[in-house]
């Protein structure tokens, strides 16, 4: 017999295992409040080597431990000087020269020089290391020229717009401690989770104090950190940063409510109500940063390829509808985005039609085609394409086939479940029957990335940076995340060819007004063609204890901790 009791137990068991130490661990007994911040994280880092993994946890922790030449100020979305005091881009746009900060020391006291930068790029460009942070231009790596002990030049094979931004993702490694292991070919085994904390050496405001697998990561201040505040005080202000590993969102919320943790980001729109009373008592501050860079999207599979068994990936009859621009536009018009914003996100979201969220303030193009909820417009678009109503509740195509498709989304995600129920109800009014199906997240990702045999999918995309270059993977027709038809050998449609061309041109255009114009056209095409049907961008809401100062929450990750050296209480 299938013991449901057992099933539930297994489930609870997993939670208990995963959140071990979330009961009354020693953390709870230690006084919070002192000069430290306690934060819940949904997972631990994969490695302490920032260059070897690009997941959210590894990078946000890595950015506290490691220094970078240039940092993107999350709030202004503009680059600012860190370990490079100044930088210059050559007139032809192919070289970036950085003047390095003098007198800077690693957390073990060793001075920082251009050698460390050169070593970092040697590792980064090494194909054997295969760093996810590595950067190439049509297969050619960046050349690094060491001009003197504190001056370095990066040379690109072609003019490169916004070249300095990529330095935000490059953590500078200490040559003195990592070069020997690199020479032995054991770089991948250095700085793993099992490495003793004192061996992890960086230029960031904090250094690693303790890592307890599955429980917590503790950082303490780096006494050699270079940055000082305006009155000359050594930063960081905080003595300790404690990351508790609480995979369950409910646990994170409860701990924050109980005052065991100091920050909560992001806060789900549904949970704001649960935090309202604490805010009224003045114990916490909730900040709504407006539309985030996360956009909920759904799209039809436009692949005309075949499966291994020779069957087409998408039923040819349906592929005809999906490829029909007016069909996609009609669907887009039929969806009530305000309902999604109000029902799914409790009003804490903005309807979205364009590729970018309005939170991407430097690049957002507001002048694109919009798709307000308009059933009559949708019906007339469908009629133009030869679709007709067989009955009030059944739409058929020109050949009389009833219009129905399967919308796939990831199981266990309450937000997506709700959005898909709204889409289902809205399209039912157009006579389109939507069958919903949920797949476990990994199975879903392998379907949209590899097996490609699905009809429509609902997911979200998020920008890694507020710069057009960060969208190449989605927009270029040969991109991996060009989900409606990934990895095309040559652009399947004229408009995709046009986007490819615009994306290539903006990459090598140095004039930012011109770039903005080019990328603006990309957004216009995306809005016109609706390969992704954009639905809404949820607001980014963050909450913090009332006494934390200098918080500059921003839309780019890490939302709260990007300026961790300045935080104080």
């Amino acid at each position, binding site marked *: 017999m299938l013991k449901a009791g057992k099933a539930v137990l297994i489930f609870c068991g997993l939670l208990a295992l995963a959140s071990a130490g979330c009961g009354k661990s020693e953390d709870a007994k230690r006084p919070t409040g002192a000069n430290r911040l306690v934060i819940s994280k949904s997972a631990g880092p994969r490695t302490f080597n920032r260059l070897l993994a690009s997941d959210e946890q590894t990078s946000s922790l890595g950015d506290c431990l490691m220094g970078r030449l240039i940092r993107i100020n999350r709030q202004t979305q503009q680059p600012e000087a860190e370990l490079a005091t100044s930088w210059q881009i050559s007139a032809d746009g192919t070289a970036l020269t950085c003047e390095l900060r003098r007198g800077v020391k690693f957390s073990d006291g060793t001075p920082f020089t251009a050698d460390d930068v050169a070593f970092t790029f040697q590792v980064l460009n090494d194909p054997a290391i295969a760093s996810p942070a590595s950067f190439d231009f049509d297969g050619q790596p960046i050349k690094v020229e060491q001009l003197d002990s504190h001056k370095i030049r990066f040379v690109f094979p072609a003019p490169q717009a916004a070249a300095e931004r990529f330095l935000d993702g490059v953590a500078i490694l200490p040559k003195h401690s990592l070069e020997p292991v690199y020479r032995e070919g054991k770089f991948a085994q250095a700085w793993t989770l099992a490495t003793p904390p004192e061996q992890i050496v960086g230029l960031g405001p904090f250094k690693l104090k303790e890592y307890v697998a599955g429980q917590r990561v503790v950082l303490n201040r780096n006494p050699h950190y270079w940055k000082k505040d305006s009155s000359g005080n050594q930063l960081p202000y905080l003595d300790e940063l404690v990351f508790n590993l609480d995979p369950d969102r409910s646990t994170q919320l409860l701990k924050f409510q109980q005052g065991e943790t100091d920050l909560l980001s992001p806060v*789900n729109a549904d949970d704001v109500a649960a935090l309202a009373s604490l805010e009224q008592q003045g114990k916490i501050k909730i900040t709504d940063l407006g539309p985030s860079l996360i956009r909920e999207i759904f799209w039809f599979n436009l692949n005309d390829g075949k499966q291994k068994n020779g069957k087409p990936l998408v039923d040819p009859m349906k592929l005809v509808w999906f490829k029909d621009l007016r069909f996609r536009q009609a669907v887009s018009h039929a969806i009530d985005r305000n309902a999604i914003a109000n029902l799914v996100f409790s009003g804490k979201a903005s309807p979205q039609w364009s590729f970018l969220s309005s939170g991407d303030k430097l690049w957002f193009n507001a002048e694109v085609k919009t798709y307000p909820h308009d059933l009559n417009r949708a019906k007339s678009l469908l009629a133009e394409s030869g679709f007709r109503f067989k009955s009030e509740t059944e739409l058929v195509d020109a050949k009389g086939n009833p219009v129905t498709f399967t919308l796939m989304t990831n199981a266990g995600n309450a937000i997506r479940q709700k959005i898909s129920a709204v889409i289902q109800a809205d399209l039912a009014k157009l006579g389109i029957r939507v069958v919903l199906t949920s797949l476990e997240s990994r199975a879903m990702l392998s379907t949209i990335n590899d097996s490609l045999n699905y009809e429509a999918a609902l997911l979200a995309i998020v920008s890694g940076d507020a710069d057009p270059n960060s969208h190449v993977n989605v927009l270029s027709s040969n991109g991996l995340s060009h989900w409606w038809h990934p990895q095309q050998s040559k652009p399947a449609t004229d408009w995709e060819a046009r986007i490819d061309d615009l994306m290539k041109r903006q990459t090598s255009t140095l004039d930012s007004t011109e770039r903005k114009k080019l990328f603006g056209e990309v957004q216009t095409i995306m809005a016109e063609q609706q390969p992704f049907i954009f639905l809404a961008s949820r607001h980014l809401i963050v909450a913090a204890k009332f006494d934390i100062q200098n918080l500059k929450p921003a839309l780019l990750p890490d939302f709260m901790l990007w300026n961790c050296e300045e935080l104080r209480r």
Partner: protein
Amino acid sequence: MNRKLRCGLLLLGLLVACATLADFLSPYDPAEQHREFPFAPLTAIHIGTAESFWRPFVFNGQQYPLRFFVTGAPYRLLGFIPCRTHLFGVQEPARIFLLGSDGLGRDVFSRTLYGARLSLTIAAVALLVSIPLALLIGTLSGFYGGWIDFICMRLMELFLALPALYLIIALRSALPLGLEPEKVFLAMVMVIALFGWANLARIVRGATLGLREREFVQAAIALGASDARIIVRHLLPNLTGLILTQAALAAPSYILAEVSLSYLGLGVPEPLPSWGGMLASVGGVGQLGTYWWNLAPGAAIFMTTLAFYLLAEGLREWSDPARK
């Protein structure tokens, strides 16, 4: 009939009636989204309008009297009689949400009733599959013993040992994506039954082993009755009480299996309302306290389980020869 049996039957009867007449009893279609009313709390019913002091009404800017036998969303009563009459309702723009509404403005009361239909059907169909299977394998194994018993027992142990939840998740991802909700339902029932029979069969085998040694069975064997006759005429009638009790015990676990699956988002897809799916939508601790009325399916699950356990207990006492 003892009191427990009567209580159990009454409660179960009530649930079955609610499930069968769900369309008539519920004021709204379970999938209808009243988008202006997300997470509406329970609608307060006041008594006494201007015209009559006992008339119940709901308040939405003005008084809207509660009406009985109103015309609403079309449905088919008992599955075949086209009908538009609902037991009660109020005139729009007012709404009546006896148990509040969920995040999409759907009526929790209507959805809970329809969910009962799904849950009880799953229990019934899964029992219809697993009991005959259990009876067949259990009696054969217990009656013949030897290598048949050995094979059957190992098979049962295999099914008892499998981690059901993981297997079901794997099965679900192996099924084609575009499966209609009805087929998903059917597949789920089959899976639940597939894992449900083994434990029952074990119990049947144990009882058969005992019965085989009893005098009347030995007498039948001595008189030269065929195996089939012995099993059908002598063993099965003596297993009735046991089987009924075990069925009543198994039913709630089947219902809970569906709830767990739907809670994980791998059960019956929207728009079919299911108790597990409804609970999943308020699974976060933030919503639990704020929108507590969405836990109504939990109360329904409790009631159903209670009904079945009362029934099982009552059946056990009723069939216990020592008490007759």
